[in-house]
């Protein structure tokens, strides 16, 4: 189909902003960008686009936004908790407004954080609940779209991009920032498979999904063509920064142990409560309530009479020792930040994601080999003074 007016949700995000640029500057198609938070809209406000205020969780604003649009591209993913609900509301709004096509941008994450097949295809990798918040949220949202397609109430195309990178990508910026601090951070030697796809190629796939009538009802994995590891990906961007760098290699076990140790335990609550109860400033505040002040002073006198001077000194030293240890802990920051558990999920990936079905059915193929995509990203990194 050739859409007359497109509604883009998630328009201020990383892929959404680029899609708006391409719609405005190349396709010159009329579209409406749904904006939840205008302070994030500076990038798309550069374009002569129609920005409409709205929220996928607000059915009224959604109905107004979708009115008069014959196609919708859904790129919104506010948070994992509400992903299913917001997709359901959007599907409902699209159905009511008789939208002719919904392109729902999902994720390869629906196939789980660590597929066991060497090559993931739409038919060989199952979709299930994986016990990983993002994967499950994307799968739940996708299920809503699939159900609408099966009911025949809405013509849908589902796209499942892999690791999308390019200008403004949050996969790239932290690598460069680490490199500027003289560090390269890898997980498990960077051996994991990096299924990287350049953001423009994802936008082209969205345009193909809008245009191709034979794609309706389908779900397609959208990946680049260059087979690289995470080591390739990370060292390419880190290598754009001049100067010596130290390579830090973390094992998944080491990272898991680190974050396990960070989680608050019941004992931490207790020791925090004891610290508060023992703190002089807390006593001073509490003492401003006359009846409590009297009680505190009385108790202190009682304790002072009951314990020996030696014991008192010992108690004070123990409390001071703890305080000192806490201060030392606070300044002892590691030279490279420990990778997040989310990074482990991404970078321990062992499967290659096939884009064959998308090539065959969407008539699309990625135009950016990794080297070209990285070069374009570098141009932006320099513009944004990150390099």
């Amino acid at each position: 189909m050739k859409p007359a007016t497109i509604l883009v949700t998630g328009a201020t995000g990383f892929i959404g902003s680029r899609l708006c640029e391409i719609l405005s500057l190349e396709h010159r198609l009329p579209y409406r960008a749904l904006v939840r938070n205008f302070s994030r809209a500076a990038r798309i406000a550069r374009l002569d686009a129609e920005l409409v205020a709205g929220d996928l969780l607000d059915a009224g604003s959604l109905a107004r936004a979708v009115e008069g649009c014959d196609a919708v591209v859904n790129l919104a993913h506010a948070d994992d908790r509400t992903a299913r609900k917001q997709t359901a509301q959007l599907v409902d709004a699209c159905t009511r407004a008789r939208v002719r096509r919904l392109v729902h941008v999902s994720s390869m994450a629906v196939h789980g954080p660590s597929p066991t097949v060497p090559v993931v295809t739409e038919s060989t990798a199952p979709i299930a609940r994986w016990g990983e918040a993002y994967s499950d949220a994307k799968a739940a949202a996708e299920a809503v779209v699939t159900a609408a397609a099966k009911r025949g109430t809405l013509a849908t195309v589902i796209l499942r991009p892999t690791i999308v990178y390019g200008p403004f990508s949050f996969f790239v910026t932290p690598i460069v920032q680490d490199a500027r601090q003289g560090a390269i951070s890898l997980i498990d030697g960077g051996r994991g498979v990096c299924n990287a796809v350049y953001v423009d190629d994802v936008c082209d796939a969205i345009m193909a999904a809008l245009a191709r009538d034979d794609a309706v009802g389908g779900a397609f994995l959208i990946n680049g063509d260059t087979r690289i590891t995470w080591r390739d990906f990370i060292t390419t961007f880190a290598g754009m920064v001049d100067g010596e760098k130290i390579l830090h290699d973390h094992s998944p076990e080491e990272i898991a142990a680190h974050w396990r140790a960070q989680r608050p335990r019941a004992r931490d609550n207790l020791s925090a409560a004891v610290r508060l109860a023992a703190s002089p400033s807390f006593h001073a505040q509490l003492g401003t309530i006359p009846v409590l002040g009297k009680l505190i002073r009385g108790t202190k006198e009682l304790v002072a009479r009951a314990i020996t001077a030696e014991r008192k000194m010992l108690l004070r030293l123990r409390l001071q020792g703890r305080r000192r240890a806490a201060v030392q802990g606070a300044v002892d920051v590691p030279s490279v930040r420990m990778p997040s558990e989310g990074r482990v999920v991404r970078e321990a990936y062992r499967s290659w994601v096939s884009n064959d079905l998308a090539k065959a059915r969407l008539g699309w193929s990625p135009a950016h080999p990794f080297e070209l995509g990285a070069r374009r990203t570098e141009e932006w990194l320099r513009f944004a003074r990150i390099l």
Partner: protein
Amino acid sequence: MRLGIVGCGAIAREAHLPVITGDRRVVVTVLCDRDRGNATLAARESGVGAAISTDPVELAGKVDAAIVAVPPRFHAPVAIQLMEMGIDVLCEKPLAITVADGRMMAEAAHRTGRVLAVAHMMRFFPHNRWLAELVEDGEVGEVREVIVEDGAPLDWPMASNSYFDRNATGGGVLFDSGVHLLDRLLWLFGDLTGIAYEDDSFGGFESNAKLTGVLHVGGRPVPARLEFSWSHRLRRSIRVVGERGTLEASTSDPRILTLHRTTRGDPMEMRIVCAGKWDAHSHYRAQLDDFIGAIRERRAPFVTAESALRALAVIEEAYARRTPMAQPWLARMGAPA
């Protein structure tokens, strides 16, 4: 003094009201906003027991002075209306959408005999005077270049979409954020001539802008470069680069002026303390002091409409001379035709 606030968006709530409520010389009697919810929120947040209204007409007889903090396109009609009602006005920056509108406002102030102050609060920064005087005294030698940079990802708590609405505002980062440092630059060093300008907009609002021109410092022409961004971090300062060092006035610390110099082959940094205490509200306090003083003494405010017109004139000329900024990653050389 009875004060009204017209336009109860983020700037009124976050910057003006916290200072006003701590000043016993003024009492806020009316909070006015086209969107009643904004005015009610401002009243609730600040604890001010003011009347709530949706039309500036309702300020008549209830206020002596007003702060105008509506979107820029409405500065001129609202401020003129208030002055004609006999109300003194402190108007948010940028003064107006066009120089012509700004002139009408200045003329209205003269005609009605009202105070019209402009909220270029950075003019009250303590390091401004030191910067101008140390440059004049030759502290950095002959001036070679003046560099102004201000950039950070846009993260202003927006009460509406007025930032990106042609019916409400007059431009992007140059007009809205750049005007602060541009105004200070012109105030400190005089006119900017030979203007060239580029930005990254495509028919919308620029989020990156670069303005160059020539200043006259110490009777000599000096190239000036001003860069502003809503997408990424820039230094946020005015730097005067001379043959013997650089003086830098950083927006993040209005108390301090920094002198960068190379001494015996090594970089040296000297911090010049221009004021004792200065917090995030101090310049708003100084601005309110001046506004109250101007009203009581019936004198010109520290930031007059006429002086604020200079930055508007440069912005207007820049937009008229606009050329596209290079964004090479946007061109799709790898894409199929």
